[in-house]
Protein backbone atom coordinates (compact mmCIF):
# COMPACT_ATOMS: atom_id res chain seq x y z
CA UNK A 1 0.00 0.00 0.00
CA UNK A 2 2.69 2.39 1.04
CA UNK A 3 4.89 1.41 -1.88
CA UNK A 4 1.94 1.91 -4.19
CA UNK A 5 1.41 5.42 -2.90
CA UNK A 6 5.07 6.26 -3.29
CA UNK A 7 5.06 4.96 -6.85
CA UNK A 8 1.93 6.97 -7.57
CA UNK A 9 3.58 10.13 -6.22
CA UNK A 10 6.72 9.43 -8.17
CA UNK A 11 4.99 8.93 -11.50
CA UNK A 12 2.61 11.80 -10.99
CA UNK A 13 5.43 14.21 -10.17
CA UNK A 14 7.53 12.99 -13.08
CA UNK A 15 4.61 13.45 -15.45
CA UNK A 16 4.06 16.94 -14.05
CA UNK A 17 7.70 17.83 -14.54
CA UNK A 18 7.54 16.57 -18.12
CA UNK A 19 4.57 18.79 -18.80
CA UNK A 20 6.48 21.81 -17.51
CA UNK A 21 9.34 20.89 -19.78
CA UNK A 22 6.94 20.56 -22.70
CA UNK A 23 5.49 23.98 -21.89
CA UNK A 24 8.89 25.61 -21.94
CA UNK A 25 9.85 23.88 -25.18
CA UNK A 26 6.62 25.17 -26.68
CA UNK A 27 7.43 28.66 -25.44
CA UNK A 28 10.80 28.53 -27.14
CA UNK A 29 9.87 26.75 -30.36
CA UNK A 30 6.36 27.88 -31.30
CA UNK A 31 6.23 30.45 -34.08
CA UNK A 32 3.82 33.11 -32.83
CA UNK A 33 2.69 34.65 -29.58
CA UNK A 34 -0.76 33.08 -29.41
CA UNK A 35 0.51 29.52 -29.76
CA UNK A 36 3.27 30.21 -27.24
CA UNK A 37 0.68 31.51 -24.82
CA UNK A 38 -1.38 28.41 -25.46
CA UNK A 39 1.65 26.23 -24.71
CA UNK A 40 2.61 27.75 -21.40
CA UNK A 41 -0.89 28.10 -20.00
CA UNK A 42 -2.55 24.83 -20.80
CA UNK A 43 0.46 22.61 -20.40
CA UNK A 44 1.81 24.28 -17.27
CA UNK A 45 -1.59 24.15 -15.61
CA UNK A 46 -1.84 20.45 -16.26
CA UNK A 47 1.70 20.05 -14.95
CA UNK A 48 0.78 21.89 -11.77
CA UNK A 49 -2.30 19.69 -11.44
CA UNK A 50 -0.18 16.56 -11.67
CA UNK A 51 2.33 17.93 -9.17
CA UNK A 52 -0.48 18.68 -6.72
CA UNK A 53 -1.94 15.22 -7.32
CA UNK A 54 1.43 13.70 -6.50
CA UNK A 55 1.84 15.82 -3.39
CA UNK A 56 -1.63 15.11 -2.01
CA UNK A 57 -0.55 11.70 -0.77
CA UNK A 58 2.36 13.28 1.10
CA UNK A 59 0.42 15.81 3.16
CA UNK A 60 -0.82 15.06 6.62
CA UNK A 61 -4.55 14.62 6.64
CA UNK A 62 -7.41 15.89 4.54
CA UNK A 63 -6.91 19.55 5.47
CA UNK A 64 -3.40 19.66 4.03
CA UNK A 65 -4.58 17.97 0.85
CA UNK A 66 -7.49 20.39 0.60
CA UNK A 67 -5.12 23.34 0.90
CA UNK A 68 -3.07 22.09 -2.03
CA UNK A 69 -6.09 21.43 -4.18
CA UNK A 70 -7.49 24.88 -3.33
CA UNK A 71 -4.27 26.55 -4.42
CA UNK A 72 -4.34 24.59 -7.66
CA UNK A 73 -7.96 25.61 -8.27
CA UNK A 74 -7.07 29.26 -7.67
CA UNK A 75 -4.19 29.08 -10.13
CA UNK A 76 -6.38 27.26 -12.63
CA UNK A 77 -9.11 29.89 -12.40
CA UNK A 78 -6.99 33.02 -12.42
CA UNK A 79 -4.59 31.74 -15.02
CA UNK A 80 -7.36 30.76 -17.40
CA UNK A 81 -8.94 34.20 -17.20
CA UNK A 82 -5.65 36.09 -17.34
CA UNK A 83 -4.69 34.11 -20.43
CA UNK A 84 -7.87 35.28 -22.09
CA UNK A 85 -6.91 38.85 -21.20
CA UNK A 86 -3.39 38.50 -22.59
CA UNK A 87 -4.69 36.79 -25.73
CA UNK A 88 -7.19 39.61 -26.18
CA UNK A 89 -4.42 42.18 -25.91
CA UNK A 90 -2.32 40.20 -28.37
CA UNK A 91 -5.04 39.82 -30.97
CA UNK A 92 -5.87 43.53 -30.77
CA UNK A 93 -2.28 44.25 -31.52
CA UNK A 94 -2.69 42.68 -34.89
CA UNK A 95 -0.57 40.13 -36.72
CA UNK A 96 2.95 39.88 -35.47
CA UNK A 97 5.54 37.34 -34.68
Amino acid at each position, binding site marked *: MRLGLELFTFFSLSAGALFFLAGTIGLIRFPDALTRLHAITKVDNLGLGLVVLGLVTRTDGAVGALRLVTIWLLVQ*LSSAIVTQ*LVAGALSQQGPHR
Partner: protein
Amino acid sequence: MTILLFTDVCLVLLVLTIGASIVRARDAFEAAIAFAIYGLLLAIVWVRLAAIDVALTEAAIGGGMTGMLLLGAAARLRLAGDDHIRASLRVRLAAGILSALVAAGVAGAVLLPPEVIPTLAPKVMENLASSGLGNPVAGVLFVYRALDTLLEKVVLLLALLGVWSLAPDGAWNGRPAIRLYARLNGTLTFLAQLLPPIGIVVAIYMCWIGAKAPGGAFQGGTILAAMWLLVIVAGLESIPSIGGTWLRIMLVIGPVIFLAIGTAGIVLANAFLAYPAGYAKPLIVAIEVALTLSIAAAPGMLAAGPPQQEQRQ
Protein backbone atom coordinates in the same frame (compact mmCIF):
# COMPACT_ATOMS: atom_id res chain seq x y z
CA MET B 1 21.21 18.60 0.01
CA THR B 2 23.20 19.06 -3.18
CA ILE B 3 19.95 19.26 -5.15
CA LEU B 4 18.86 22.30 -3.20
CA LEU B 5 22.28 23.87 -3.62
CA PHE B 6 21.98 23.39 -7.36
CA THR B 7 18.54 25.02 -7.33
CA ASP B 8 19.96 27.90 -5.32
CA VAL B 9 22.71 28.48 -7.87
CA CYS B 10 20.13 28.57 -10.68
CA LEU B 11 17.92 30.85 -8.60
CA VAL B 12 20.70 33.34 -7.96
CA LEU B 13 21.72 33.32 -11.64
CA LEU B 14 18.11 33.91 -12.69
CA VAL B 15 17.69 36.77 -10.20
CA LEU B 16 20.86 38.42 -11.49
CA THR B 17 19.77 37.94 -15.11
CA ILE B 18 16.38 39.53 -14.49
CA GLY B 19 18.05 42.28 -12.44
CA ALA B 20 20.40 42.99 -15.35
CA SER B 21 17.50 43.04 -17.78
CA ILE B 22 15.86 45.78 -15.65
CA VAL B 23 18.98 47.87 -16.16
CA ARG B 24 19.36 47.02 -19.84
CA ALA B 25 15.73 47.33 -20.90
CA ARG B 26 15.17 49.66 -23.83
CA ASP B 27 12.44 51.73 -22.27
CA ALA B 28 11.08 52.34 -18.83
CA PHE B 29 8.02 50.21 -19.50
CA GLU B 30 10.01 47.09 -20.28
CA ALA B 31 12.11 47.79 -17.22
CA ALA B 32 8.96 48.05 -15.10
CA ILE B 33 7.65 44.69 -16.38
CA ALA B 34 11.00 43.11 -15.60
CA PHE B 35 10.89 44.66 -12.15
CA ALA B 36 7.48 43.16 -11.38
CA ILE B 37 8.79 39.73 -12.41
CA TYR B 38 11.88 40.33 -10.32
CA GLY B 39 9.74 41.12 -7.26
CA LEU B 40 7.71 37.92 -7.64
CA LEU B 41 10.90 35.94 -8.11
CA LEU B 42 12.48 37.37 -4.97
CA ALA B 43 9.69 35.71 -2.98
CA ILE B 44 11.26 32.36 -3.86
CA VAL B 45 14.67 33.66 -2.74
CA TRP B 46 13.20 34.67 0.62
CA VAL B 47 11.70 31.20 0.99
CA ARG B 48 15.17 29.77 0.45
CA LEU B 49 16.48 32.13 3.15
CA ALA B 50 13.86 30.68 5.55
CA ALA B 51 12.16 34.08 5.87
CA ILE B 52 8.57 33.17 5.01
CA ASP B 53 7.11 36.39 6.43
CA VAL B 54 9.39 38.43 4.20
CA ALA B 55 8.59 36.20 1.21
CA LEU B 56 4.88 36.94 1.64
CA THR B 57 5.52 40.68 1.93
CA GLU B 58 7.87 40.72 -1.05
CA ALA B 59 5.43 38.89 -3.34
CA ALA B 60 2.60 41.20 -2.32
CA ILE B 61 4.33 44.57 -2.14
CA GLY B 62 7.56 44.13 -4.10
CA GLY B 63 5.99 42.23 -6.97
CA GLY B 64 2.32 43.16 -7.02
CA MET B 65 1.87 46.68 -5.72
CA THR B 66 5.22 48.19 -6.78
CA GLY B 67 4.75 46.55 -10.18
CA MET B 68 1.30 48.10 -10.56
CA LEU B 69 2.61 51.51 -9.48
CA LEU B 70 5.67 51.53 -11.76
CA LEU B 71 3.86 50.08 -14.76
CA GLY B 72 1.19 52.75 -14.48
CA ALA B 73 3.81 55.48 -14.19
CA ALA B 74 5.85 54.11 -17.10
CA ALA B 75 2.79 53.97 -19.30
CA ARG B 76 1.80 57.53 -18.35
CA LEU B 77 5.27 58.93 -18.89
CA ARG B 78 5.77 57.12 -22.16
CA LEU B 79 3.43 59.63 -23.75
CA ALA B 80 5.93 62.32 -22.78
CA GLY B 81 8.44 60.88 -25.22
CA ASP B 82 11.18 58.42 -24.52
CA ASP B 83 14.41 59.16 -26.28
CA HIS B 84 16.62 56.87 -24.36
CA ILE B 85 19.82 58.68 -23.56
CA ARG B 86 22.74 57.08 -21.82
CA ALA B 87 25.65 58.55 -20.02
CA SER B 88 28.92 58.91 -21.86
CA LEU B 89 31.39 56.04 -21.91
CA ARG B 90 33.66 57.69 -19.37
CA VAL B 91 30.85 58.16 -16.87
CA ARG B 92 29.67 54.60 -17.41
CA LEU B 93 33.17 53.25 -16.89
CA ALA B 94 33.67 55.23 -13.70
CA ALA B 95 30.24 54.20 -12.42
CA GLY B 96 30.99 50.60 -13.25
CA ILE B 97 34.24 50.65 -11.29
CA LEU B 98 32.62 52.41 -8.35
CA SER B 99 29.71 49.94 -8.30
CA ALA B 100 32.04 46.97 -8.53
CA LEU B 101 34.09 48.30 -5.63
CA VAL B 102 30.98 48.88 -3.52
CA ALA B 103 29.67 45.41 -4.37
CA ALA B 104 33.02 43.83 -3.50
CA GLY B 105 33.15 45.73 -0.22
CA VAL B 106 29.64 44.69 0.75
CA ALA B 107 30.30 41.11 -0.30
CA GLY B 108 33.43 41.09 1.85
CA ALA B 109 31.55 42.47 4.83
CA VAL B 110 28.69 39.99 4.51
CA LEU B 111 30.79 36.97 3.59
CA LEU B 112 33.15 37.29 6.55
CA PRO B 113 30.92 36.73 9.55
CA PRO B 114 32.11 37.89 12.97
CA GLU B 115 33.44 35.32 15.44
CA VAL B 116 30.34 35.42 17.59
CA ILE B 117 27.24 35.94 15.49
CA PRO B 118 25.30 38.75 17.14
CA THR B 119 21.67 37.76 17.48
CA LEU B 120 18.65 38.57 19.54
CA ALA B 121 16.87 35.40 18.47
CA PRO B 122 17.25 33.52 21.80
CA LYS B 123 15.87 36.51 23.70
CA VAL B 124 12.95 36.80 21.30
CA MET B 125 12.08 33.13 21.72
CA GLU B 126 12.52 33.28 25.50
CA ASN B 127 9.97 36.05 25.95
CA LEU B 128 7.63 35.16 23.12
CA ALA B 129 5.43 32.92 25.27
CA SER B 130 4.37 35.80 27.51
CA SER B 131 2.90 37.65 24.53
CA GLY B 132 0.77 34.66 23.55
CA LEU B 133 2.05 34.82 19.96
CA GLY B 134 3.59 31.89 18.14
CA ASN B 135 5.20 33.80 15.28
CA PRO B 136 8.50 35.36 16.36
CA VAL B 137 8.42 37.92 13.54
CA ALA B 138 4.99 39.13 14.66
CA GLY B 139 6.41 39.23 18.16
CA VAL B 140 9.20 41.55 17.07
CA LEU B 141 6.84 43.71 15.04
CA PHE B 142 4.17 44.16 17.69
CA VAL B 143 5.89 43.62 21.02
CA TYR B 144 9.60 44.35 21.01
CA ARG B 145 9.79 46.89 18.21
CA ALA B 146 6.20 48.13 18.27
CA LEU B 147 7.38 51.73 17.95
CA ASP B 148 8.98 50.94 14.56
CA THR B 149 5.77 49.39 13.34
CA LEU B 150 3.69 52.33 14.54
CA LEU B 151 6.01 54.85 12.91
CA GLU B 152 6.02 52.83 9.71
CA LYS B 153 2.26 53.28 9.49
CA VAL B 154 2.78 56.99 10.01
CA VAL B 155 5.34 56.98 7.19
CA LEU B 156 2.74 55.41 4.90
CA LEU B 157 0.32 58.21 5.76
CA LEU B 158 2.99 60.89 5.35
CA ALA B 159 3.92 59.50 1.93
CA LEU B 160 0.26 59.55 0.98
CA LEU B 161 -0.04 63.17 2.13
CA GLY B 162 3.07 63.95 0.09
CA VAL B 163 1.59 62.33 -3.02
CA TRP B 164 -1.72 64.12 -2.57
CA SER B 165 -0.06 67.46 -1.97
CA LEU B 166 1.44 67.27 -5.46
CA ALA B 167 -2.01 67.71 -6.94
CA PRO B 168 -2.75 71.02 -8.64
CA ASP B 169 -4.80 73.38 -6.49
CA GLY B 170 -8.03 72.80 -8.36
CA ALA B 171 -7.77 69.06 -8.02
CA TRP B 172 -7.71 68.89 -4.24
CA ASN B 173 -10.43 66.56 -3.02
CA GLY B 174 -10.62 65.11 -6.50
CA ARG B 175 -10.21 61.51 -7.50
CA PRO B 176 -6.78 60.00 -8.12
CA ALA B 177 -5.88 59.58 -11.77
CA ILE B 178 -5.41 55.83 -11.71
CA ARG B 179 -5.11 54.25 -15.14
CA LEU B 180 -8.25 52.33 -15.89
CA TYR B 181 -8.52 49.49 -18.31
CA ALA B 182 -8.86 51.29 -21.61
CA ARG B 183 -10.72 48.65 -23.57
CA LEU B 184 -14.06 47.54 -22.22
CA ASN B 185 -13.60 43.91 -21.62
CA GLY B 186 -15.90 41.22 -20.31
CA THR B 187 -13.00 38.98 -19.37
CA LEU B 188 -11.51 41.51 -16.99
CA THR B 189 -14.92 42.19 -15.49
CA PHE B 190 -15.27 38.49 -14.85
CA LEU B 191 -11.84 38.32 -13.22
CA ALA B 192 -12.61 41.37 -11.10
CA GLN B 193 -15.83 39.76 -9.92
CA LEU B 194 -14.32 36.37 -9.26
CA LEU B 195 -10.92 37.04 -7.71
CA PRO B 196 -11.76 39.59 -4.98
CA PRO B 197 -14.00 37.25 -2.92
CA ILE B 198 -11.18 34.69 -2.92
CA GLY B 199 -8.66 37.42 -2.17
CA ILE B 200 -10.69 38.70 0.78
CA VAL B 201 -10.85 35.22 2.28
CA VAL B 202 -7.09 34.84 1.80
CA ALA B 203 -6.52 38.26 3.38
CA ILE B 204 -8.55 37.37 6.46
CA TYR B 205 -6.69 34.07 6.67
CA MET B 206 -3.34 35.89 6.43
CA CYS B 207 -4.30 38.37 9.12
CA TRP B 208 -5.55 35.63 11.41
CA ILE B 209 -2.73 33.17 10.94
CA GLY B 210 -0.18 35.94 11.51
CA ALA B 211 -0.30 35.48 15.26
CA LYS B 212 1.07 31.97 15.19
CA ALA B 213 2.58 31.40 11.75
CA PRO B 214 4.03 33.59 8.99
CA GLY B 215 1.54 36.16 7.80
CA GLY B 216 -0.05 39.19 9.38
CA ALA B 217 -1.52 42.63 8.87
CA PHE B 218 0.92 43.76 6.17
CA GLN B 219 0.30 40.83 3.91
CA GLY B 220 -3.45 40.69 4.54
CA GLY B 221 -3.83 44.43 4.03
CA THR B 222 -1.86 44.40 0.80
CA ILE B 223 -4.04 41.62 -0.60
CA LEU B 224 -7.12 43.69 0.19
CA ALA B 225 -5.52 46.71 -1.50
CA ALA B 226 -4.71 44.68 -4.60
CA MET B 227 -8.24 43.30 -4.85
CA TRP B 228 -9.63 46.80 -4.42
CA LEU B 229 -7.42 48.12 -7.20
CA LEU B 230 -8.43 45.21 -9.42
CA VAL B 231 -12.09 46.13 -9.06
CA ILE B 232 -11.30 49.80 -9.76
CA VAL B 233 -9.08 49.08 -12.76
CA ALA B 234 -11.82 46.92 -14.25
CA GLY B 235 -14.16 49.89 -13.95
CA LEU B 236 -16.64 48.15 -11.65
CA GLU B 237 -16.20 50.74 -8.91
CA SER B 238 -14.91 54.26 -9.12
CA ILE B 239 -11.99 55.26 -6.96
CA PRO B 240 -13.04 57.37 -3.96
CA SER B 241 -12.16 61.04 -3.98
CA ILE B 242 -9.43 61.81 -1.50
CA GLY B 243 -11.77 63.90 0.63
CA GLY B 244 -14.10 60.97 1.29
CA THR B 245 -14.90 60.55 4.97
CA TRP B 246 -14.85 56.77 4.86
CA LEU B 247 -11.54 56.69 3.09
CA ARG B 248 -10.00 58.98 5.66
CA ILE B 249 -11.41 56.95 8.54
CA MET B 250 -10.00 53.79 6.97
CA LEU B 251 -6.60 55.42 6.54
CA VAL B 252 -6.19 56.52 10.14
CA ILE B 253 -8.04 53.82 12.05
CA GLY B 254 -5.03 51.52 12.24
CA PRO B 255 -2.47 54.01 13.58
CA VAL B 256 -5.09 55.60 15.88
CA ILE B 257 -6.06 52.31 17.54
CA PHE B 258 -2.39 51.32 17.75
CA LEU B 259 -1.57 54.65 19.38
CA ALA B 260 -4.56 54.45 21.73
CA ILE B 261 -3.63 50.98 22.95
CA GLY B 262 -0.01 52.05 23.21
CA THR B 263 -0.93 55.12 25.27
CA ALA B 264 -3.17 53.06 27.49
CA GLY B 265 -0.09 50.96 28.13
CA ILE B 266 1.49 53.90 29.99
CA VAL B 267 -1.24 53.61 32.62
CA LEU B 268 -1.93 49.89 32.57
CA ALA B 269 1.53 48.45 31.99
CA ASN B 270 3.86 51.27 32.96
CA ALA B 271 5.33 51.84 29.53
CA PHE B 272 4.31 53.33 26.19
CA LEU B 273 3.28 50.55 23.76
CA ALA B 274 3.42 47.92 26.50
CA TYR B 275 0.54 45.51 26.91
CA PRO B 276 -0.97 44.61 30.30
CA ALA B 277 -0.05 41.08 31.32
CA GLY B 278 -2.44 38.46 30.00
CA TYR B 279 -4.09 40.77 27.48
CA ALA B 280 -1.23 40.95 25.00
CA LYS B 281 -2.63 38.62 22.39
CA PRO B 282 -6.20 40.00 22.16
CA LEU B 283 -4.83 43.55 22.03
CA ILE B 284 -2.32 42.63 19.30
CA VAL B 285 -5.06 40.95 17.28
CA ALA B 286 -7.22 44.09 17.64
CA ILE B 287 -4.32 46.23 16.43
CA GLU B 288 -3.67 43.87 13.52
CA VAL B 289 -7.28 43.96 12.37
CA ALA B 290 -7.34 47.77 12.44
CA LEU B 291 -3.97 47.94 10.71
CA THR B 292 -5.15 45.55 8.01
CA LEU B 293 -7.91 48.01 7.11
CA SER B 294 -5.50 50.94 7.06
CA ILE B 295 -2.93 49.02 5.03
CA ALA B 296 -5.66 48.09 2.58
CA ALA B 297 -6.41 51.77 2.06
CA ALA B 298 -2.97 53.40 2.14
CA PRO B 299 -0.99 51.37 -0.46
CA GLY B 300 -4.04 51.28 -2.69
CA MET B 301 -4.25 55.08 -2.69
CA LEU B 302 -0.46 55.36 -3.01
CA ALA B 303 -0.51 53.18 -6.11
CA ALA B 304 -3.37 55.26 -7.51
CA GLY B 305 -1.34 58.48 -7.43
CA PRO B 306 -2.24 62.14 -6.89
CA PRO B 307 -5.78 63.38 -7.53
CA GLN B 308 -6.72 65.00 -10.79
CA GLN B 309 -9.26 67.50 -12.00
CA GLU B 310 -12.66 65.85 -12.37
CA GLN B 311 -12.83 65.02 -16.04
CA ARG B 312 -11.96 61.41 -16.61
CA GLN B 313 -14.52 59.01 -15.32
